[in-house]
């Protein structure tokens, strides 16, 4: 599987670390809503089809990426930095 990192270009999956379901929302740090915390930590969407997920390009630029990837075909339909893309990469093309 190749993942096209917005900074580094297409790289082998081995360079990336999977950080799981990208639909989870971390509660406010001060929140005492234990159910919300539990749901955030333990309960995952696990669709057969397109999945919104977080990956880190740990063997490259180390940026975290938000991807939509199909869990049936492994096809990746979108990749973007989780953090707003740096101006530097916006102004230039792919490597």
């Amino acid at each position, binding site marked *: *599987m190749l993942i096209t990192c917005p900074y580094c270009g297409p790289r*082998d*999956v*081995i360079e990336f*670390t*999977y950080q*799981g*379901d990208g639909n989870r929302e971390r509660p406010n740090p001060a929140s005492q809503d*234990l*159910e919300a915390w*539990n*749901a955030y*930590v*333990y*309960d*995952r*969407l*696990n*669709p*057969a089809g397109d*999945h919104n*997920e977080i*990956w880190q390009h740990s063997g490259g630029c180390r940026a975290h990426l938000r991807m939509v*990837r199909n*869990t*049936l*075909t*492994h096809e990746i339909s979108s990749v973007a930095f989780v953090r707003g893309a740096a101006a530097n990469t916006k102004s230039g093309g792919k490597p």
Partner: protein
Amino acid sequence: MAEYSVFSLLKNALNGNRDWKPAWRKPDPKASYDVIVVGGGGHGLSTAYYLAKEHGITNVAVLERGWIGSGNVGRNTVTIRSNYLLPPNTRFYEHSMKQWENLSHDLNYNVMFSQRGVLNLAHTPAQLDDYARRGNSMRHQGVDAELMTPAQIKQLMPAIDISGNARFPILGGLMQRRAGTARHDAVAWGYARGADRRGVDIIENCEVTGFLRDGDRITGVTTSRGEIRAKKVAVVVAGSTGRVMQLAGIDRLPIESHVLQAFVTESLKPFLDTVVTFGMGHCYINQSDKGGLVYGGDIDGYNSYAQRGNLPIVEDVMSEMLAMFPSLGGVRLLRSWGGVCDMSMDGSPIITKGPLPGMYLNCGWCYGGFKATPASGFCFAHTIARDEPHELNAAFTLDRFHRGILIDEKGQGATPRLH
């Protein structure tokens, strides 16, 4: 249906093998059952078998989307062991081990359970201590375990590299001699035949497409072969849990589906009679009775239902295998395949009543479900029949995650790819 035995074999051979009957019937689904078991894998079939055998509940249908045993029971690397650290796991898997020891007889079907031993190699003193902790935990629960020295290991498997100049020298290992392997497909077929002989309907090519509900209560399923009603619906579809539970309106669970690859080499004259695992990484290997080395390693590490993995894990596993057995560089990989695993948030399974009324759920086997097949079915049948867990699966609840009562064998927390 006739008993299998050496006599039936001889009698049929004289007849040109023309009189053998199907190992299980191919019935059409009835309109309703006492229990519907969704999933004709190892655990579903064993659940049906024990419902009939232990609880006298025989008005049972097992619904299988494809052919029985098409999931992980037919895709795993066949290791059976009870060498767990944490007591809820050790107890459960040891019960399973005892079932395995008499399973062929029980089922009148040779599942080829071979107690050839499982050896975990240790490469650092700290790891050896870790294994000692686990082995002693087993011994304190009446389970066999022993530590082996490198010399003893070398004697057991002469092809292994115990030299001190290896990158990760072998300092010893934890051996469970009663552990071993079985013929995976035979387990599915044996349970299917056993359940069928007790009246269970095994219905293949019958995909569940939805759940029938009365309010919150589950009252049956819709399938590719029509509606089927049941007093109780048991979902036991590890690998597809996410998909099936979504049909019941539950789209979030403490589970991620991951792909695990497995490998077999070309057939070789047997030289490895023990299951052995590499400790600096993840690789487990055994040699089948046909002579192929059957082995695997880590999951690929991302959500997948594709039963297809990628190249990096292939390379990792081969590298680790050759670190153990440096003479096998010229041996050739024959086939690889993938299975989809329910990776739970603590690495341990879920066998429970619920989460909806009328429903029972068995899932979260990570990649260790094969060895659990007998105990999983046994406990799940108990839970379904009695509406309360057996003491062996009392800890395997769905709410344990939220309550913080985790059974985290590897201590990795809610990071499924690391379990």
